[in-house]
């Protein structure tokens, strides 16, 4: 056992002296967290609203009222634009989406005819989807006010034996708008967790995603060293002088666990204190998740280093594995926005369970008992990976 710890000491020393290890362990994950946190808007963080370009080809009071209703929505930031500019602005993603109000809008609305507005969007844009919902909501309200006013005016006209005219409709509209200002039925949203963000995006996603995704890069230095040591005959030398394989493997695993645990700790602290994510609701659960993640990353790193004989092979496989686990596990984007069945497939992988658990402790108040099940899946992976790694390990 003593030799194992000597190996750990040597590995940690090499790691500390390697500036690139620092780059991958600390710097890149932090950069990733901050950038993605700002890029993917969360519900509450999106105070400025999604930019929506609006081209009004009608210019009527009705169109102006519609635009004012859009401006009143906190989710949207309306930018006036000429119709010819909208497609390019949307294509270049300078705005989340564009809305074209056609000429004749007011006339159609006044005559009770149907009128269609054009919503210009890029399919892959999540901002566009949110803008669509916001615009639909405004139109719904607008439609309802118009319908209510028109119907009220018509019924009163029949009862009072007078014609329906603009004055009557206008009066009805005013009365309807007063009623809508204080509606009878309201919809409120609550949740069991601490956060009621309209959208889990922002730092809630990027912070946890970084923790899960970047641990595999955290093992790159130690795993790469193992490959180089094998190439240069250093592992064989250790073997010849009597150091057992389990001592070498143990030393390397422990080092990888320590390095990645420290990496996670830093990211958790930054997430908690800088971005306001409540990681410490259940410290025991958090520690279990972090330990499981570190051991999992170490098992992956050990397996890849055992299988691949060259530095290039190790780096390539490590990067690809990290990318796949990140993409499939919900580290890049929430799994709920994926297709039917994908989430089921993704939950074969340990990264998905780790992300679920992190969301659980920060958003749903999960405790250690709640994370035992998901961590059980992770530990099955760990046992299998470790077994294969040990089976494949050769000192030369």
């Amino acid at each position, binding site marked *: 056992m003593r030799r194992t710890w000597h190996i750990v000491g040597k590995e940690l020393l090499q790691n500390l002296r390697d500036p*690139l290890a620092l780059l991958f362990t600390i710097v*890149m994950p932090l*950069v*990733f967290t901050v950038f993605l946190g700002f890029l993917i808007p969360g519900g509450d963080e999106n105070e400025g609203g*999604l930019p929506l370009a609006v081209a009004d080809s009608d210019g009527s009071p009705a169109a102006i009222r519609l635009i004012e209703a859009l401006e009143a929505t906190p989710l949207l930031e309306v930018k006036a634009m000429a119709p010819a500019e*909208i*497609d390019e602005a949307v*294509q270049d*993603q*300078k705005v989340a989406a564009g809305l074209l109000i056609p000429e004749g809008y007011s006339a159609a*609305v006044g005559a*009770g005819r*149907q009128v*269609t507005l*054009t919503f*210009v969007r*890029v*399919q892959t844009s999540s901002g566009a989807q949110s803008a*669509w*919902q916001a615009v639909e909501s405004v139109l*719904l309200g607008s439609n*309802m006010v118009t*319908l*209510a*006013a028109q*119907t009220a005016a018509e*019924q009163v006209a029949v*009862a009072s034996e007078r014609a329906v005219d603009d004055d009557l409709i206008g009066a009805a509209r005013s*009365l*309807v708008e*007063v*009623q*809508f200002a204080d509606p*009878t*039925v*309201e*919809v409120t949203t609550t949740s*069991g967790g601490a956060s*009621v963000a309209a*959208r889990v995006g922002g730092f809630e996603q990027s912070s946890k995603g970084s923790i899960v995704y970047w641990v595999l890069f955290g093992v*790159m230095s130690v795993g*790469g060293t193992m490959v180089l040591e094998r190439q240069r005959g250093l592992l064989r030398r250790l073997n010849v002088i009597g150091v057992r394989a389990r001592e070498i493997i143990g030393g390397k695993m422990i080092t990888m666990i320590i390095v990645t645990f420290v990496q996670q700790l830093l990211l958790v602290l930054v997430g908690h204190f800088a971005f306001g994510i409540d990681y410490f609701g259940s410290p025991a659960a958090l520690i279990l998740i972090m330990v499981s993640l570190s051991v999992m990353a170490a098992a992956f790193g050990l397996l890849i280093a055992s299988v691949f004989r060259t*530095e290039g092979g*190790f780096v*390539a496989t490590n*990067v*690809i594995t990290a*990318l*796949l686990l990140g*993409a*499939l596990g919900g580290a*890049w*984007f929430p799994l*709920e*926005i994926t*297709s*039917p*069945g994908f*989430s089921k497939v993704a939950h074969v992988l340990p990264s998905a369970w780790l992300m679920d658990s992190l969301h659980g402790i920060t958003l*749903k108040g999960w405790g250690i008992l709640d994370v035992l099940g998901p961590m059980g899946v992770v530990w099955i992976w760990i046992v299998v990976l470790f077994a294969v790694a040990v089976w494949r390990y050769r000192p030369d």
Partner: protein
Amino acid sequence: MMRALSIAWKDTVHVYRDFAGLAMMFIAPLVLAAVLGAAFGSGDNFSIAAAKTVVVDQDGGAGAGMPAAGAALVAALQSPDVGDLLTVTETDSPEAAREAVDSGDAAVAVIIPPGLSGALTGAAPAKAEIEIYKDPALTVGPSIAEAVAQSVAQSLNGSRAAATAAAQLAVSQGLTDQAQIADVAAKTAAVVALEARADAQITLEQRNPVVAGAEKEKRPNVASQVLVGMMLFFMLFGASVPARSVLDEHRNGTLSRLFTTPTRRGVILGGKFIAVFVVVLVQAIILILAGWLLFKADWGEPGPVTVLLVCSALVAASLGLVTVSFAKTPGQAGAVSSAIFVFLGLVSGNFTGTIVTSGPFATIRRVSPIGWLMEGWSKVLYGGSWASIALPVLVTLGFAVVLFAVSVFFFRKRYA
């Protein structure tokens, strides 16, 4: 020139004999594109899993002539229109509904309060609150349920508002018979309730942007949009593999040996540059073909696609060379270039698709040649032609020239 081509050929063969390099260049982007394509739907449109929704209807009675408001909401949630998005089950109590969400059995619970209908039909002003109890880790499913609830609430409020307004309007028009006023109000509410379910007057229709030069909108499929980002990202890695050969040869002594031959250093480095460009270009062509065959990607007009391919290869080659030129060992080069490429991929939108990048992020994207390439490819995918890619092509060529010059400077300085 022949010697430069000999060096280029030697380096290219070396790349294709390296399984790890091939895996990064071809297997990784195709696998990731397949995975991400599967994540977001294999067809032309995005699709997501239906969210499990639990509803509790505590609303008891209906007013005369009005359907139960609670039942209307339940019917709306169970409507075929949202059948792909919500899977709805009913339960007995709010506690059971919340428990279902807390335990993860449902994404969202819709809790309809008692007296909802009464609040709407009562003479005195009253309030009723429909509660959406959501899983805090989820957003899409709950937001759909919330949108449906809001829509029904709007309709109910509309009926109530219409009835109240009609009554007030009737009084203002001189009607005094209370029974008549009540009848006007009731009829108004009924008509509104009925017509609210009919076609809306103002509708919304969506389309993709029409790119400059295209005659009409074109809708690229999901996989091709994802594959563009993956292709550009992995071309960077594809370039770094042969680019690192300079450092490998320096370590192995073959670079010094090359310098002892009559072949000039400029020719040696030029040969290596050619190898990097050829490797990356072949990689891009194979990925384009694979995208077309496997994912039915319609890349766009051949001319602009070819130009973008060549630009992408030039930019990737120049980025691969310049990142390697800062490094002293192959290991360092691998790590440094990986970090730079992941960062570039991040700010250029390779991983996240197009997200609104107004403000400072639009500026950051403009600093990245990959960001410009993403823009050019996006335009071509959406049906753009020469005019729409002119600026991205010019800018990326400028980037490539500058980056090549920087790498030449550093290489010359080191191996003078």
